[in-house]
């Protein structure tokens, strides 16, 4: 036996790695990478939580190299999870926002698009009022601090910034009905003919159009746990309301019903006595979507929310899109049978660019065909200002 043979024998004897095991391990590379990102996030969150209590810590998020060599070999679902975990890891390790001084607020101006539905007047001969679909655009300005803030939503009048009827048929019927008051267009003119019930779809309390209201998001969000597992459990038990406030005990899912303590949604019924508590996975995702609309939540809990979204099996990477000249990666999630969520993330900076909820079952008044309608928020940058006005 030569020295070389001896060396090989020694090496083969010591190298007890089965070929099949190495093959198995090779296939685990991407999965383990996702685990590394997830664990890194969870651990660092404990440290960051203390920063949040005192100073409104913050974030970045994001992922680079999205469409690089890793993703083509992965399913769209695993690619989405990897992207979200990566974003969560970056979020957790990013620098914080400046500490607010007395009277300071984080200010953000986002552009919004939301679908609205309103009815014409009903008559004794026609008790079922006509219904019109409308798309309202505008701006949402928010001032938030650790102790609360202000949300102001201003809707563009018809014809400005894309505000208009959803389809020509909607407008034609509205004209035919005598142009009744369009509650979706509060700044616009009308004949004074009263309209009927109206509502804005989608984004919940944060989008009360043409209103300025107090927000307790800043204070409430600071009380939420930054640990993904804990926050997920609270969402599942229905303890977190759409405005980020919490219930001390499990309750009927706030997304479905106006549970005690939940942000009141006029269009939602009150939970009947004996209703089961807790939220389904889809409802949990709905609540995450609601939290994403809150500047403080998306900023302070960005990493946690990304981690929770990454755990959604149906999350899928859906290519790229351009938002305000920036190319972002799109992650989509189903929200029940009739809605989908998509978030757009800038893969080069980690910025959350846009969030869209698409309603799949809105019906064209003339043809009866389903017309998908979307609520869209395109985020602006956050700056520190003194005073909220």
């Amino acid at each position, binding site marked *: *036996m*030569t*020295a070389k043979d*001896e*060396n090989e*024998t*020694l*090496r083969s*004897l*010591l*190298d*007890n*790695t*089965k070929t099949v*095991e*190495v093959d*198995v*391990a*090779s296939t*685990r*590379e991407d*999965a*383990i*990478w996702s685990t*590394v990102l997830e*664990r*890194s996030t969870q*651990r*660092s969150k404990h440290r960051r939580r203390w920063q949040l209590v005192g100073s409104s810590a*913050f*974030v*970045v*998020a*994001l*992922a*680079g*190299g999205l469409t690089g060599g890793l993703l083509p070999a992965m399913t769209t679902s695993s690619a989405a999870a990897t992207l979200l975990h*990566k*974003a969560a*890891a*970056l*979020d957790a*390790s*990013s*620098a*914080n*926002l400046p500490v607010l001084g007395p009277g300071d607020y984080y200010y953000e101006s986002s552009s919004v698009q939301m679908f609205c539905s309103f009815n014409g007047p009903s008559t004794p001969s026609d008790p079922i009022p006509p219904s019109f679909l409308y798309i309202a655009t505008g701006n949402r300005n928010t001032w938030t601090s650790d102790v609360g803030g202000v949300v102001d939503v201003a809707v563009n009048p018809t014809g400005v910034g894309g505000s208009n009827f959803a389809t020509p048929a909607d407008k034609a019927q509205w004209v035919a009905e005598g142009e009744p008051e369009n509650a979706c267009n509060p700044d616009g003119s009308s004949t004074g003919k009263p309209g009927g019930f109206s509502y804005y779809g989608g984004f919940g309390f944060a989008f009360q159009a043409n209103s300025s209201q107090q927000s307790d998001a800043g204070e409430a969000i600071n009380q939420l746990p930054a640990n993904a597992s804990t926050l997920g459990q609270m969402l599942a038990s229905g303890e977190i309301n759409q405005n980020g406030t919490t219930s001390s005990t499990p309750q009927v899912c706030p997304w479905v019903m106006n549970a005690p303590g939940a942000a009141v949604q006029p269009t939602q019924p009150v939970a009947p006595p004996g209703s089961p508590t807790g939220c389904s996975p889809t409802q949990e995702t709905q609540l995450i979507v609601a939290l994403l609309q809150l500047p403080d939540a*998306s*900023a302070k809990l*960005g990493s946690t*929310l990304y981690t929770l979204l990454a755990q959604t099996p149906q999350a899928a990477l859906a290519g790229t899109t351009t938002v305000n000249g920036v190319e972002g990666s799109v992650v989509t999630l189903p929200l029940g049978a009739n809605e989908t969520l998509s978030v757009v993330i800038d893969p080069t*900076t*980690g*910025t*959350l*660019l846009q969030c869209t909820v698409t309603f799949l079952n809105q019906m064209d008044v003339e043809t009866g065909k389903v017309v998908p309608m979307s609520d869209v928020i395109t*985020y602006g*940058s*956050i*700056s520190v200002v003194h005073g909220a006005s």
Partner: protein
Amino acid sequence: MSREPRRNPDHARKDLAAFEFFYRTNYQSVSRYVLRRLPLDSHDDVVASVFVVAWRKFHSCVNPSLPWLYRIASFEVAHERRRLARRPNMDSVRDWDIVSVQPSLDDNDLGVSFRQLSTSDVELLRLLFVEELSREDAAMVLGCTTGALNVRLHRARTRLIDTMHRVSWTPVDIETMTEDIKEAP
């Protein structure tokens, strides 16, 4: 998820990109390192733990390297062995059976000899012969000086030769192996 560039906003992204490259470059080596020392069931968790620790220290480490990862992995492997040892119905967890995975060598005298070496001796020889580390890097993994490693290598070699004498290795084989070990990296 924020919407505002932070202080040095590119740092985290660049760090993560660099760390992912570091992960991709060294994953196979760390994976095999763990597989050689622990049951397959422990593989994913331990490898992930190694890189989680590495990520946490990545910023402060002057020269992240494979030996540095092996050093982290050695602690994670030891931790996992202690955990496994506490499980019911397990008398102990020894170094992952170096013979059972090579049935053809099961009755080989060299295999018998190695089974009589201590875990630390096998670990030392494995780092040099299988992981193919230099003595300096192996010393880093084991947390000792290169001089101390040389001494430990000399003693491991002596013990290996002694065990060979107790089994049926021929003097020629022993002499060849001894020379080989002497010249090892």
